[in-house]
């Protein structure tokens, strides 16, 4: 079986940590900043960062429409924190002009867990990740206010939805890339591998 090529949207954010986690999870990982680079990947991670900045740069450099088109066509995507916001069909309180790629029928609330002083670590049980709970690192993190019927809720923390999946799109409020535990990335690499197989048939 061939190794999937997984891109990390490298406009801004913790790109390096995602590249390392993906490589550890048996993917060929590479940064993506241009439409032609996006066309060459079997899966894409939208990293943590500032969602307003990433959104603005994606629009400015002609990536927003290609991103939407590939996600619509079923490209496996995973977003952590700011990446989760980018994959939401709707933001509860967007900054003026803040656009998202969409792909998951959910409404997210930005910085829902509070400012940096309230950022925290907590164990999170994630459906589809075997074994011990994941170490959840939540940094000025969003949560999911509500989801549509086709969205599977994978994890909650204190009654708030913090991990979801809809088809080939996966999103977490927290940052598995900041821990040494790459099981969430392994789950996503499997999604990308499955998609590559279908594409190759």
């Amino acid at each position: 079986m061939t190794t999937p090529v997984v891109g990390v949207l490298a406009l801004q954010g913790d790109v390096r940590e995602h590249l390392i986690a993906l490589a550890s999870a048996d993917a060929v990982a590479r940064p993506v900043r241009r439409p032609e680079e996006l066309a060459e990947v079997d899966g894409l991670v939208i990293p943590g960062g500032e969602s307003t900045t990433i959104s603005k740069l994606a629009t400015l450099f002609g990536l927003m429409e290609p991103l939407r088109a590939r996600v619509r066509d079923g490209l496996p995507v995973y977003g952590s924190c700011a990446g989760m916001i980018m994959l939401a069909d709707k933001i509860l309180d967007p900054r003026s002009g803040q656009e998202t790629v969409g792909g998951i029928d959910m409404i997210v609330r930005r910085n829902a867990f509070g400012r940096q002083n309230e950022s925290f670590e907590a164990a999170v049980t994630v459906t589809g990740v075997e074994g011990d709970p994941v170490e959840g690192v939540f940094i000025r993190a969003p949560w999911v206010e509500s989801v549509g019927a086709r969205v599977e809720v994978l994890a909650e923390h204190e009654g708030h939805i913090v991990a979801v999946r809809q088809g080939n799109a996966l999103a977490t409020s927290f940052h598995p890339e900041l821990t040494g535990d790459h099981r969430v990335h392994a789950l996503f690499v499997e999604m990308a591998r499955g998609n590559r197989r279908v594409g190759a048939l």
Partner: protein
Amino acid sequence: MSSTPASSNPSTETGTARVKRGMAEQLKGGVIMDVVNAEQAKIAEDAGAVAVMALERVPADIRKDGGVARMSDPNMIEEIIEAVSIPVMAKSRIGHFVEAQVLQSLGVDYIDESEVLTPADEVNHSDKFAFTTPFVCGATNLGEALRRIAEGAAMIRSKGEAGTGNVVEAVRHLRQIKNEIARLRGFDNNELYAAAKDLRAPYELVKETAELGRLPVVLFSAGGVATPADAALMRQLGAEGVFVGSGIFKSGDPAKRAAAIVKATTFYDDPKIIADASRNLGEAMVGINCDTLPETERYANRGW
């Protein structure tokens, strides 16, 4: 080291090293802009800044006005926190841990223990482990950077010379830090003990830096960036992002220049995009030649 003041759930932990350093990881590839009011903060956010630094006077004005530069008015910091959704940083004087306590109570996302303000203690920096809010500190060389990390800093910025609009000192300090790390990489274990002594930094941090080939925390560049090409230069030299102080709001068209610096910081290795970003920006800040700057007016000398 960590505490859980804000949480009712004993299984969640705030203020950990991972949460503090992880916050800086989220800023990488971005531009942090000095702003003096809510209106400027909005311009910075609209231009794509990843965070703003709230302060009463930009460094160029601190230079001009003279006198003692202190922490900003809490009202002004709160107005900026209200105005934007991106993280808000604010500066405390070196060693003035009460200013830092005040900034933490206001809910700022990062505290900059900064040489741009007048130092409050000529021997000691603040104990940064005592805070839930993470700290960024300036450094001119590797030893200084590692001493700040040993005190709890979760992010480092090379100092440069703030308020000059002259990138020469930023280049000097970043090159110094990168060169010293490259030298450490070539040392064997026996040599690392002596290196720690020379650097006046804890052995464990020296060893970790040698193994990683970079600082154990995020490294930004600051102090003199005034143009898109300046920002791209610092990134090509190895900075993971840039602070821009006086360079934006002391220029002819701040909104346009801010957006241009953001573009050049993301595509720092693409001269064509940097060229496009550099077109028709209006006047840059005038700037100061650092070799005519008296020793007593060099902020980078503050901190030890």
